[in-house]
């Protein structure tokens, strides 16, 4: 118990939350995490930086039960730091799992989707509800993965910007939840 508490206090010091970001207190953040401005982290969302730091850009929405983990690969050398980068304007919907090390901008991970460690996501992609990706690849821009057998297509447009939703959440969430205080890098 005591060891866990000490671990928590140690990792909490690595947490960097931007001034305009909105991180609910009930979210679970472990390790070296940087959260950019206007990003919203819902209660019960989990972000774990195990193998290296996680850098999250601006205006992302990370919903309840979303699980973002920079996992230590089995057999990998723990001394090599592996950075997970998440761009801006991405939406992580309820109960999605993101284990990859790269995500661009304006992507949507729909409910219960799963992105494995080998899948790099570029810009404007949509991973449909319940779709699982476990290969080693880089998704081309504006890819849409949908349906029970993960069919693919390339869309014309990127998914809509989540700014309206962010405006709404910044008004609502502060009324009912305690927030984690923004803290700078030092």
């Amino acid at each position, binding site marked *: 118990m005591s060891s866990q508490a000490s671990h928590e206090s140690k990792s909490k010091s690595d947490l960097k939350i931007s001034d305009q970001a909105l991180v609910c207190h009930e979210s679970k953040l472990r390790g070296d995490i940087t959260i950019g401005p206007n990003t919203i982290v819902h209660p019960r969302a989990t972000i774990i930086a195990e193998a290296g730091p996680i850098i999250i850009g601006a205006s992302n929405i990370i919903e309840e039960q979303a699980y973002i983990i920079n996992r230590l690969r089995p057999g990998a050398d723990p001394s090599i730091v592996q950075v997970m980068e998440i761009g801006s304007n991405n939406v992580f919907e309820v109960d999605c799992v993101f284990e990859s090390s790269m995500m661009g901008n304006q992507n949507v991970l729909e409910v219960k989707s799963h992105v494995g460690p080998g899948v790099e996501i570029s810009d404007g992609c*949509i991973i*449909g509800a319940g779709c699982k990706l476990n290969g080693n690849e880089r998704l081309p821009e504006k890819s*849409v993965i*949908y*349906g029970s057998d993960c*069919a*693919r*297509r*390339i*869309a*014309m*447009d990127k*998914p809509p910007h989540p700014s309206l939703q962010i405006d709404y959440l910044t008004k609502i969430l502060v009324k009912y939840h305690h927030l984690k205080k923004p803290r700078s890098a030092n």
Partner: protein
Amino acid sequence: MALMFQSDVVQYVCTCGQLKPISLMYFCRHCLKLRCGYCVCHEVDSHYCSNCLEILPSAEARLKKHRCQTCFDCPNCLNTLAVRATTVSVRDPDDPNKVNSLKKYYHSCFFCRWTTRDVGLPDQAVQTVSANGWSQKGESNIQRINVLLEYVRLLGMQERHEREQREKKFTPRSRRTFTHHPGLTAAHVRKRAGLPPELPAPSTIRDNLAEFQPAVAKEEVASLPESIFTEELDIDQVTTLTQRLAQPETQPESIVDLIPSCKHLCTKRSQRCRGCEHNVSKPDLNPSSIKFKIQHAASFHVPEVRLVSVQPLIGSKECEIVIVFSNPSQQPTTISFITLEEAEAEAQEHTEVTPDTSVPQGEAPPSLSSLTRSPPVMEEPRPVSIAVTGDVNLPTADVEIVLAPKDDAAEYDDSSDTQQFHDDPQIVVHRRANKASLRLTVIPHADKAGQNCTIGFGFRYTYINRISTPASASFEPQKVQLSSRTFLNCGKIKESQ
């Protein structure tokens, strides 16, 4: 639900000889027989769109090719398309400095994010887009199809004409007598006699047929486009077979040519017993309602058998199984076991007696005149084609097990059962509310090791018939003894050591 009723574990024998789980069967309360989907008449009650829930009369539905005119399916993933609105700013034609904002609508799929903009279809000014907004292209075949349909219709008329000529000598007397009535035209008489309307003269039919131009085979076939040899194939741009077949008129090869297709209509169907033409199931007409006007599912009338536990099945060794009987009716019922042969004999006996006892004359609904509807089909029940791979020791036929009536409140009642039944503890293991667990011994066949052990038995049960018939003036619930056959799949047989 399928798991709950153990769809492939316990199967009942339908009157027609089909094996079905009880959840998929009907029970006709008039001829007191089990009916399955294959031995009922299906009738379409209404056509409706599953998206906008609009009811269409069947004539209109046929006219609109059984498709809804306002709802569309995604051509990419075949789910329903949703209408989305956007505001577009348009420069005022009168005043170049003024900018008007206009609301425009387009269709988009929530599943695969396909939009009508993907294929370059223009946004619409109104929310409800009619189908002819964009489905104009590629309908070059429609005229030829209409000509062919007309030709086949004429052929049919000619054939009917010839047949009527042959039968003219034997016009029934009853029809002729109608002509004496004053004020009745020939068309009226035909309608009353249940005959189709009068045909045009044979000479006009022949003339019209002569006008038809048959298709001519071409010597030259259009050559393949140059690009097919030179350009690399992008598999993402090619439509799948499902997408192509969803649009039979155009069958596009490239995803650029996909256009939304009108949504197919759904039907509400009622099921009618083949023996007595009474409804066994009739849904509510309103598409938004999931209730039924009449619903005689077998699981509301026939005791249900479920398999509870099986001891390891070893060839030619006795092993115990526990099954549970539950009584779905509001009256107590008595169950006794019989062998399959006895049950089959009883079922056949029942079939022979039916026509004159359980379907009294004059009971058929008045709308069903013999002219509009075919007479009830009496089919020989087919033999059951399932191989029994285990013998079961049944309690003797005089062992009667009484099942308490179903009480919906009993589920929430914690008090222990106060009912007293004189059960043989060797057979009845456990009782609760309307259920009784019974222990049976099964001897799997030794030479069938590795296969599934299928056992079969018949059982008699008492059923209270609450249908009042006009023939019997005094209404009194009738107690009848019915029998049913079931087959149980108990699992794999192990090798005997």
